[in-house]
């Protein structure tokens, strides 16, 4: 491992009016070469041609103090060493030309010499890894070692400092808890997911895509990400939440990108549009798959170039926002079907996270119930709790329930329980009532099918024996694409043994017995 240092020639600190007396004073560049416990194989010095004389003295003196150090001159002409743009640019170019090999060499960057602007630039280049290594700072000291002074090594990798690392760990835990709304989730996959999202949220301004079943908490998480970034002072703008399914036609364009007065009928005044409102903040586009193709194209341009054209305007407007998209649809399929632009998909698919449904993380149901209960209590200013037996019954029910509507459904269940709880105490009766209410939903739907196709008095005209079969047949038909599809499902076992397969016929004939046509069922299904 070679030790290599980069340092500016200190035109003030390294020079001394009386050359003969120079060894009696602290000169940072030379002092670095005097350290007992530090040795550099290469000492690169940035200097300007007009300081050649001083450079020669310093190079000679470094060599005297440290004979096995090679001093390497690095001419760097700066018109104005206090001009940030120039200094940063020149140093940046310098770094680009160097072949840094951090695995083979230890790099050090001396920040005591050079202007403060140069220090800032070195710091930035180091932080962005353009100039690898540790920062080193020198200072004079008193007593017998005054010419040698002292030095301090500063490693900008904050995780190397125990106290800071501890603090950051606590803050990170707080961030995670924040994203999880303080719910102590136990599902390891979900916790790992949130950790990744936190890291991305804190470090990146690129688009984030949240997928997962309806009610999984996409919109809630998007808002939490926004709040976290605001707390960390990473953004200052608004959180704009739009459901793309609600945007249609001209209205959609205008809502998103804004319009000028008179751009269309009814446009009585200028409107900035949601993208503009989200400037400096976060734009959350939920159900992104529902966005129209024109809007998709405009949006892509708005993300990539941060500019767009409001409706009716001939002047582009700019907005810098972070985009978060949500969808419960499979976007890859939408792209294949030509319904979603591939380029937009690629752009928003950079950080893609799938939020699992509640049934995929059953261990988290309990803490979420507690959370919902607390939220309900807070909202209604009344403390709501389960009695012990009711809690057991409810938990048992909750752990077996499929939770199709996920958090939205859980929220509804708790709201009902909380509202109906006698005296703020949820008892067994309330839970049982809720359970009953939940169980027959699907059965009731099926009864409704019989009613629709046989008439309201169906029970009095048909045997229960026949109705039981018909109910299930209708139900399967309702969830099938066509007659053949339904036939395949209904005769799945017997069709294996047959040569000719006329399941569709067989089903059509069965339905005809009750005066029902498959098309009617399909139509009923789409309407409802």
């Amino acid at each position, binding site marked *: 491992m070679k030790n290599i240092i980069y340092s500016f020639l200190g035109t003030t600190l390294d020079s001394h009016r009386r050359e*003969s*007396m120079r*060894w*009696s*004073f602290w000169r940072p560049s*030379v002092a670095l*070469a*005097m*350290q*007992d*416990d*530090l*040795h550099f194989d290469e000492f690169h010095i940035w200097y300007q041609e007009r300081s050649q004389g001083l450079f020669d003295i310093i190079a000679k*003196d470094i060599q*005297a*103090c*440290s*004979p*096995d*150090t090679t001093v390497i001159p690095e001419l760097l002409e700066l018109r104005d060493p206090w001009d940030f743009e120039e200094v940063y640019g020149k140093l940046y170019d310098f770094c680009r030309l160097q072949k840094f090999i951090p695995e083979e060499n230890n790099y050090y960057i001396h920040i005591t010499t050079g202007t403060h602007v140069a220090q800032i630039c070195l710091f930035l280049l180091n932080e962005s890894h353009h100039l690898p290594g540790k920062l080193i700072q020198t200072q004079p000291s008193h007593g*017998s070692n*005054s*010419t*040698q002074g002292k030095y301090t090594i500063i490693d900008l990798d904050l995780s190397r400092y125990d106290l800071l690392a501890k603090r950051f760990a606590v803050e990170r835990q707080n961030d995670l808890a924040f994203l999880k709304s303080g719910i102590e989730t136990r599902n390891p996959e979900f916790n790992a997911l949130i950790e990744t999202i936190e890291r991305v949220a804190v470090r990146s301004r690129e688009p984030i895509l949240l997928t997962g079943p309806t009610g999984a908490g996409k919109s809630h998480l998007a808002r939490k990400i926004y709040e976290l970034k605001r707390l960390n002072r990473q953004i200052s703008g608004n959180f704009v939440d739009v459901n793309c399914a609600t945007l249609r036609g001209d209205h959609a364009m205008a809502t998103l990108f804004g319009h000028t007065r008179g751009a269309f009928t009814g446009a009585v005044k200028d409107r900035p549009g949601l993208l503009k409102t989200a400037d400096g903040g976060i734009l959350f586009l939920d159900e992104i798959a529902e966005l129209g193709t024109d809007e998709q194209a405009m949006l892509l341009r708005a993300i990539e170039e941060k500019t767009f054209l409001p409706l009716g305007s001939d002047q582009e407007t700019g907005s810098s926002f972070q985009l978060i998209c949500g969808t419960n649809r499979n976007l890859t399929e939408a792209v294949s079907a030509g319904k979603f632009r591939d380029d937009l998909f690629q752009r928003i698919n950079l950080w893609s996270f799938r939020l699992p449904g509640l049934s995929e993380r059953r261990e988290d149901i309990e803490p979420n119930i507690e959370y919902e209960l607390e939220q309900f209590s807070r909202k209604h200013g009344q403390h709501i709790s389960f009695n012990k037996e009711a809690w057991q019954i409810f938990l048992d029910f909750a752990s077996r329930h499929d939770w199709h509507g996920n958090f939205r459904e859980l929220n509804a269940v708790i709201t009902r329980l909380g509202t109906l709880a006698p005296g703020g105490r949820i008892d067994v009766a309330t839970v049982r009532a809720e359970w009953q209410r939940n169980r027959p939903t699907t059965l009731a739907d099926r009864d409704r099918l019989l009613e629709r196709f046989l008439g309201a008095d169906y029970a009095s005209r048909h045997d229960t024996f026949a109705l039981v079969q018909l109910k299930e047949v209708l139900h399967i038909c309702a969830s099938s694409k066509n007659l053949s599809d339904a036939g395949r499902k209904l005769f799945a076992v017997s069709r294996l043994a047959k040569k000719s397969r006329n399941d569709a016929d067989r089903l059509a004939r069965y339905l005809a017995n009750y005066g029902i046509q498959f098309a009617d069922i399909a139509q009923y299904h789409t309407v409802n």
Partner: protein
Amino acid sequence: MITIDGSFGEGGGQILRTSLSLSAITGQPLHIENIRANRKKPGLMRQHLACVKAVAEICHGELDGAELNSQALTLKPGMIQGGDYRFIIGSAGSTLLLAQAILPVLLFADRPSRVVLEGGTHTMQAPIFDFFERVYLPCLHKMGLEIEVSMERAGFYPAGGGMVVLSVKPARVWRQLSLIERGELQEARVTALGSGLDQSILTDELKIFQAGLAGVLPWQALARDVESSGSGNVLFAELAYENLTELFSVCGRYGLSRKSVAKSAISLVKQYIGQGWVVGQHLADQLMLPLALGAGGNYLTGRPTLHAESNRQVIRRFLDVKVDFKKMSDSLCEMEVQK
């Protein structure tokens, strides 16, 4: 393999240098740990590393852990080879401390050596060249050794750049050395050495020194300007007796007044004379190893220092010799090395 605890006794560079020399001379592999463990900056500093590498080069040794700030080191010595060497020490490290480490080794080489040492010649916390030349070497000469030293250029802290040439012939005979009496005082001389300094600094130091010791001894004073790459100043007093010469030096530096330099030198001289020592503390530390390597001997000195105690321990680990401190009075002690 002999393992030495580097934090024992004085716990610094001395224990390291003595161990390195003895390992090379006896051919015993050395493992030294806790190097300078209790110092503010523990482990090998640049000047120590220079010693380690120099000894290893001379004895064709294999090194492990020879890195800056390393706290553990292993040396597997090979054959000691004389000849021409050149060692450069950065950071104005003392060429004399390096000389002290390699000189005993070169006494056991296959042929005479000529070593060029570049670095500091007059630095703090190390013997100055004049001490090495006029105090230490004459003692070795008395023991029958053939060693020459010359200074081509002075090197002060912090610029260094000094050059010392050391010529060593392999030891052929070892004579006992006994320094129990100083003998007649032949000369008392005080020198103010300077480089790149105002002459008045030197003359003032001499004046103050002489005034402080007026009536004790008649001093010959000498202001000497030497060439060097940096500036520097040393005030040293030499007492040449019939049996030995002793020398006491104080390094001047920026921020230390001429008066303080002179006063420190005065107190060193007064201490030596007043305590009745024959061999001063620094010389006592340095003589122990040659005596143990050679035919033994004895000398009258002050109470053993930490340096002396750690030297004794290290020597006894490598060599079958008896090293005794016999207390003569509160301030006097006889040091005896017996083969």
